[in-house]
């Protein structure tokens, strides 16, 4: 049911006096309060802008870090943290293409192995004793070797 204007006007007139205090309050001067409202809202706006600014900065820093970590792992910029020696270029994936396995074997086989005996001796003073024994054993004839082997086997030595 849509009410007619007459009904509405009657009720409005009846309420007019009762609502006068509310209307009076609405029209009263509260400029001090409304000014303060503007400044408080402006302050919030400023805080929000600052917060957004710092949030953006923080996001950028995180993004940079993530990109850096990923790049670091993929491209391996720093060789010093690598498990392989810098001098051994065969293992530097980023700087050299993979070597052909056979070609690599040849290089390793052909290379002369230099042993630093001074260091080895410092670490193990009995080394030369072992080496002499080994040489002796290598030069023994087969029957002598068999004899030694049998002595060890039957715990005679």
């Amino acid at each position: 049911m849509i009410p007619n204007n007459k009904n509405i006007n009657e009720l409005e007139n009846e309420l007019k006096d009762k609502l006068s205090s509310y209307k009076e309050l609405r029209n009263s001067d509260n400029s001090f309060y409304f000014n303060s409202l503007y400044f408080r809202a402006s302050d919030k706006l400023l805080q929000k802008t600052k917060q957004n600014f710092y949030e953006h900065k923080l996001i950028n820093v995180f993004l940079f870090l993530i990109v850096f970590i990923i790049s670091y792992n993929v491209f391996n910029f720093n060789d010093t943290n690598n498990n392989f020696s810098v001098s051994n270029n065969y293992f530097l994936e980023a700087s050299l293409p993979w070597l052909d396995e056979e070609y690599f074997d040849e290089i390793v086989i052909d290379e002369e192995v230099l042993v630093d005996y001074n260091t080895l001796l410092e670490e193990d003073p009995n080394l030369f004793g072992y080496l002499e024994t080994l040489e002796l054993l290598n030069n023994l004839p087969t029957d002598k070797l068999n004899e030694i082997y049998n002595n060890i086997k039957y715990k005679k030595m």
Partner: protein
Amino acid sequence: MNFVEEDRKLVEDFINGSESAFKKLVDKYSKKIYWHARGMLNNHLDADEITQQVIIVLYNKLKTFKFESALYTWIFRITSTRCINFIRKRKIQKIFSLSDENYNNLTSRNDIVKDFERKDEIEQIEKALRKLPVKQREVFIMKNFEEMSYKEISEITGKSIGGLKANYFHALKKVTEILNDSEQ
């Protein structure tokens, strides 16, 4: 210059970087925003909060305003939507007992009613408004206090004029009854 042209000029000045133009807009509308929110929410603190929120929204969104409707219609639409959302949130909080039972009686030392001589009458009216369903309360405030036409209210709320008239009539009847009862 009529008020629509004045608003357009102020918005244009603000978009061109004039902060004082924005201050003038706020001076012009903050009172209307506050009283609409106060009528809808019936307490000072919430109305204060909503007014600040609307000012912030205006600051951020005025640049996108196309003047397809009057500025005050747009501002009232924002305020009305914020108030209705606020009421819904409060209802949800009540269901989950997250808010105090006396939430509606919140007062503040800054409340502009505090020093008003006819403070008791204001409290009675706010009590009556609180008892109205939201739709009726909204049309009652706009028609009775903001003295808007049904056409303007319809533009803001998106409801038919017939529906608004019916809601207004029921609201008038209820408020009259409640206020008459409280006098006895």
